[in-house]
């Protein structure tokens, strides 16, 4: 093929040259070119190497269905592999490289794969690399992976931004060809709001490129007028360079707008791409169609191209694909290509028409001096990196001749682009009259189809259907009106196409170009009984490349139908799924990347913590101080220092992140009784109680405290992680299960800043810091709560303890947190008060044997945690029945235990399995695991909580022995099973 710039196209302006580079060579294109048209204009016909056989490949189509001309676009961090050259709009300085070749595109070492062809048939990797078995992972798979694949993605972070945006409309029209334009204009005329999405940069679709006339003038004139009319209508939004990638339930569509892909870099403040979520009442699919290639030996040679692509190159871009062309067709449409080539002064050496009696179009061609060979099809081409001649085969006689040419332009008919119409599960149906799969949609919508996507080819019919679909869609959206009739245009004429799925000739005839699947592979799949088209697809990988079989699927179905001796209707299609064309992962993320992926929640005291050396740890979305380390101090040393200071004097800890819920109403106590496993009805005002919440399946859901502030007013705390789920659970319990109860609830997590003050000196600190409160042992006993006002600020003091020390929690409105914190620090200074973080908090809770996240893991029940006695024995509560299910009393259930090493200097690790000392060391003999583990400064050795089958099982005062196995570090530690409470088991400190 020796392409050249023949004229000015509809889209291009040769007076404005644009420089670009392909594989290191500098070229010049014209403004309006795509990378594909500019390369063809420069005489380039070789675009890349194929996936499996590394065969030289050129341009096949001129749209998003292109399977061959895939390039690596741009460089550095903006490198984008597998870019389809006909969809890449040219800009000054564009850089592209061919893919899948080494060392160069013209000389590719792996082209030797072609010689190994017989070995690389369908399913070869299931058959060929079976021995020796161990070679699969170490040799064969890495080798195949290196050899396969197309472009390479960059590892650098993408410097561009991607955006997500939303549209609401009455009617969404997919496709800006004449059918889509008629639909949009008619729906708008009826009064509907319309969004029109067109994949390319140009409205009009095929009609202007085909050189058709509308209303007695060039089609482009009508397109321009309608485009101007739509642009002026503020009910209408036209999105060009926008691909509707998928249709979803209830009129939701996802579309990708390529905002800046046609530029070197996005303009300031603009994203590269924008992902639209479009909510439409009705949708018109006018997505057009894909021309099918013909299946014959060597049909993949550079220079063999779709007839419509060659026509568009000429009319749209002014580029002729060669000087001596042969056209091979099964239908009338390709004759248009012949006429346009003749108009441009290109020689059309012959038209091979597979139809024995081609009809009036052939007569018209003959009348202008073209040589038409009826009943003829190509049986092969001469040339490997370009076409030098075509072998024409007379289908009836088997005779033929060789015709010299530099381009072979093929048309196997048109496949409606039904993809979007099937995304919601409506498979297309075969039409014998159209020889195509067409959409099968309900007449009343909400999805309507028009034009070539419906199997319609004649221009006038496409326009009639577009108008009808636009009005129907508007009506479906509740907008009824009328629209002007369509203008006059060409009606259906000529002879019907013939189905020619495969030319009977020997040689490698490609069906799926991108995945290198041949007609022979399809036959092999049938012989090996992968008969269903879904099995054929997966066995041969047909249609599984990035083009998803747009040019290959129907040819394959036709060939399989022929092999099986049935109609294509019986073979059916494979399932079309979104996206219609490949979608950049970045568009799914939008702006939600890095730290923007999820919100960061900070306590009201966060800035103080940051100023005072806190190391933060993520607790869900929250950031919590882990330790307040001193310079040079390790995490371990800081933790131990903080624990010792709390246990010997006093410390304070920010506990604001705990979930908080306010509950009001005359039935609040009744409601709590149903919600929690333990009893609340008799909780007096001014008292706090531990609360254990089960799921309906009887397992522990969450724990926390419930404070009764008044007869009808409660304050609930939850674990940090479960704040949201517990509120949703409570709302469900109220609104669905017990709507008759008069209660109301709301979250208060971010209303109250809570500070724990813990340690033997905590009472003295509070007495000094909060003179408005009487915190003496008699006035505020353990598990008491007082509300008051300190210095004009609403303040709550709870006497509760997580550390096991004498301790309080003080809560003030969020914004007053830091004032309270610094006041407490000042009051505590004489006692050596320090802030402590979650590490010290964790050590002290393990020392006290309190279960937390690792123990409340969704699998444990109240009795597993030693809390069976908390559960009410009368009356209903969530989870009660299932908490007593017989599986709950299985003696083999792992239950909460304390663990300590037999030798004091040995460390324990969370996650270690617990084994019987005499049992074999296997996973099957595991009796449980270490759930939480820390060094205890109080005990002077490592301590742990664990869940262990059989529990403590004391044998006459001798503690049970197990082995804590941590094979990753080859540690096998003898441990004793003890009470989970290691410190102050009788609770004298917290009751002080």
């Amino acid at each position, binding site marked *: 093929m020796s392409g050249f710039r023949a004229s000015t196209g509809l889209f291009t302006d040769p007076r404005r040259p644009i420089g670009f580079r392909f594989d290191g060579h500098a070229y010049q294109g014209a403004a309006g070119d795509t990378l594909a048209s500019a390369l063809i204009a420069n005489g380039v016909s070789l675009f890349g190497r194929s996936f499996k056989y590394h065969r030289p490949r050129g341009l096949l189509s001129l749209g998003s269905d292109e399977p061959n001309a895939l390039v690596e676009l741009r460089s550095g961090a903006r490198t984008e592999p597998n870019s389809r050259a006909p969809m890449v709009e040219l800009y000054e300085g564009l850089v592209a490289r061919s893919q899948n070749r080494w060392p160069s595109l013209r000389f590719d070492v792996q082209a030797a794969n072609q010689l190994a062809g017989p070995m690389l048939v369908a399913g070869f990797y299931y058959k060929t690399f079976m021995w020796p078995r161990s070679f699969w992972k170490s040799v064969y798979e890495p080798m195949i992976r290196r050899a396969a694949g197309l472009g390479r993605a960059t590892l650098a972070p993408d410097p561009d931004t991607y955006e997500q945006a939303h549209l609401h409309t009455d009617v969404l029209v997919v496709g800006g060809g004449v059918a889509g334009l008629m639909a949009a204009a008619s729906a708008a005329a009826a009064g509907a709001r319309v969004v029109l999405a067109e994949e390319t940069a140009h409205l009009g679709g095929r009609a202007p490129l085909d050189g058709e006339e509308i209303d007695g003038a060039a089609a482009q004139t009508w397109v321009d007028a309608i485009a101007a009319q739509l642009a002026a209508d503020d009910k209408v939004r036209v999105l060009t360079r926008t691909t509707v990638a998928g249709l979803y*339930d209830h009129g939701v569509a996802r579309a990708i707008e390529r905002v800046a892909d046609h530029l070197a870099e996005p303009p300031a403040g603009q994203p590269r791409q924008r992902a639209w979520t479009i909510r439409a009442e009705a949708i018109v699919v006018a997505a057009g169609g894909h021309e099918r290639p013909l299946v014959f030996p060597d049909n993949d040679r550079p220079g063999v191209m779709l007839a419509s692509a060659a026509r568009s190159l000429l009319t749209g871009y002014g580029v002729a694909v060669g000087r001596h062309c042969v056209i091979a067709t099964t239908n009338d449409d390709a004759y248009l290509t012949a006429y346009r080539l003749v108009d441009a002064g290109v020689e059309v050496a012959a038209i091979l028409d597979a139809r024995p009696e081609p009809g009036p179009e052939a007569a018209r061609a003959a009348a202008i001096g073209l040589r038409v060979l009826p009943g003829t099809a190509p049986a092969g081409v001469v040339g490997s990196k370009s076409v030098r001649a075509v072998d024409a085969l007379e289908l009836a006689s088997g005779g033929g001749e060789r015709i010299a040419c530099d381009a072979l332009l093929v048309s196997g008919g048109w496949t409606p682009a039904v993809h979007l119409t099937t995304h919601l599960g409506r498979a297309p149906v075969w039409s014998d009259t159209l020889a195509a799969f067409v959409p099968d949609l309900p007449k009343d919508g909400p999805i309507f189809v028009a034009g070539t996507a419906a199997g319609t080819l004649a221009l006038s019919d496409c326009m009639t259907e577009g108008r009808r679909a636009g009005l129907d869609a508007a009506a479906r959206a509740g907008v009824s009106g009328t629209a002007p009739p369509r203008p006059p245009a060409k009606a259906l004429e000529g002879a019907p196409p013939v189905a020619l799925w495969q030319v009977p000739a020997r040689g490698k005839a490609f069906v799926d170009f991108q995945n290198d699947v041949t007609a022979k592979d399809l036959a092999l799949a049938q012989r090996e009984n992968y008969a269903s088209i879904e099995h054929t697809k997966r066995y041969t990988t047909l249609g599984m490349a990035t083009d998803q079989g747009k040019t290959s699927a129907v040819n394959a179905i036709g060939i399989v139908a022929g092999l099986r001796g049935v109609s294509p209707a019986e073979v059916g299609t494979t399932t079309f799924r979104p996206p219609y064309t490949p979608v950049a992962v970045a568009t799914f993320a939008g702006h939600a990347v890095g730290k923007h992926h999820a919100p960061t929640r900070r306590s009201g005291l966060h800035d103080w913590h940051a100023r005072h050396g806190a190391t933060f740890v993520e607790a869900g979305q929250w950031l919590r101080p882990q330790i307040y380390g001193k310079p040079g101090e390790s995490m371990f040393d800081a933790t131990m220092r903080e624990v010792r200071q709390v246990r010997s004097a006093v410390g304070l800890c920010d506990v604001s992140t705990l979930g908080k819920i306010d509950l009001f109403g005359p039935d609040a106590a009744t409601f709590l009784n149903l919600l929690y496993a333990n009893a609340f009805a008799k909780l007096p005002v001014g008292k706090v109680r531990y609360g254990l919440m089960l799921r309906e399946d009887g397992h522990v859901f969450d724990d926390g405290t419930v404070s009764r502030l008044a007869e009808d007013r409660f304050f609930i705390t939850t674990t940090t992680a479960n704040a949201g789920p517990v509120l949703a659970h409570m709302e469900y319990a109220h609104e669905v299960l017990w709507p008759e109860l008069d209660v109301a609830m709301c979250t208060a997590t971010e209303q109250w800043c809570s500070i724990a003050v813990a340690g033997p000196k905590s009472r003295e600190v509070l007495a000094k810091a909060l003179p408005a409160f009487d915190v003496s042992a008699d006035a505020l006993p353990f598990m008491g709560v007082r509300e008051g006002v300190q210095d004009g600020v609403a303040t709550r003091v709870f006497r509760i303890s997580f550390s096991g020390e004498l301790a309080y929690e003080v809560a003030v409105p969020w914004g007053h947190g830091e004032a309270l914190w610094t006041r407490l620090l000042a009051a505590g200074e004489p006692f050596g008060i320090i802030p402590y973080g979650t590490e010290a908090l964790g050590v002290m809770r393990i020392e006290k044997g309190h279960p937390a996240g690792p123990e409340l893991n969704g699998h444990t029940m109240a009795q597993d945690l030693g809390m069976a006695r908390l559960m009410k024995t009368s009356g209903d509560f969530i989870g009660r029945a299932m908490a007593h299910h*017989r599986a709950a009393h299985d003696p083999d259930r792992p239950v909460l235990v304390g663990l300590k090493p037999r030798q004091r200097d040995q460390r324990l690790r969370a996650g270690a399995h617990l084994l019987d000392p005499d049992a074999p060391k296997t996973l099957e003999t595991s009796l449980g695991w270490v759930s939480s583990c820390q060094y205890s400064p109080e005990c002077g050795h490592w301590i742990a909580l664990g869940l262990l089958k059989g529990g403590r099982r004391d044998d006459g005062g001798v503690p049970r022995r197990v082995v804590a196995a941590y094979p990753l570090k080859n540690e096998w530690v003898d441990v004793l099973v003890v009470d989970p409470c290691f410190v102050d088991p009788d609770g004298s400190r917290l009751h002080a």
Partner: protein
Amino acid sequence: MLRIPCPCCGLRDETEFTYNGSAEAPRPTDPEDGAAAAAYVYFRANPRGWHAEYWHHAQGCRRWIKVIRHTVTHEIAASGWPDEDLPMPEAAPNTGKAGR
């Protein structure tokens, strides 16, 4: 993505809601009846067709609602408050086939 008619907020995106399963299995009232509780928790019908179910408008009004949805076509016939008695449509609507 479904669009769910919230009786409080109007038509809203599915992403604003969380799902909580069938509204056709009432919670057993006898806390001593383990078999009824087990059936309630574990043995739910999984109908191919119309299904009454609870959704929580967690990112909206935070109300629990009842929705009548077709499990094959995702068509939503009605929505209302949890204690509303919503009529169940007779037959499957003719808007789609099962995905294959």
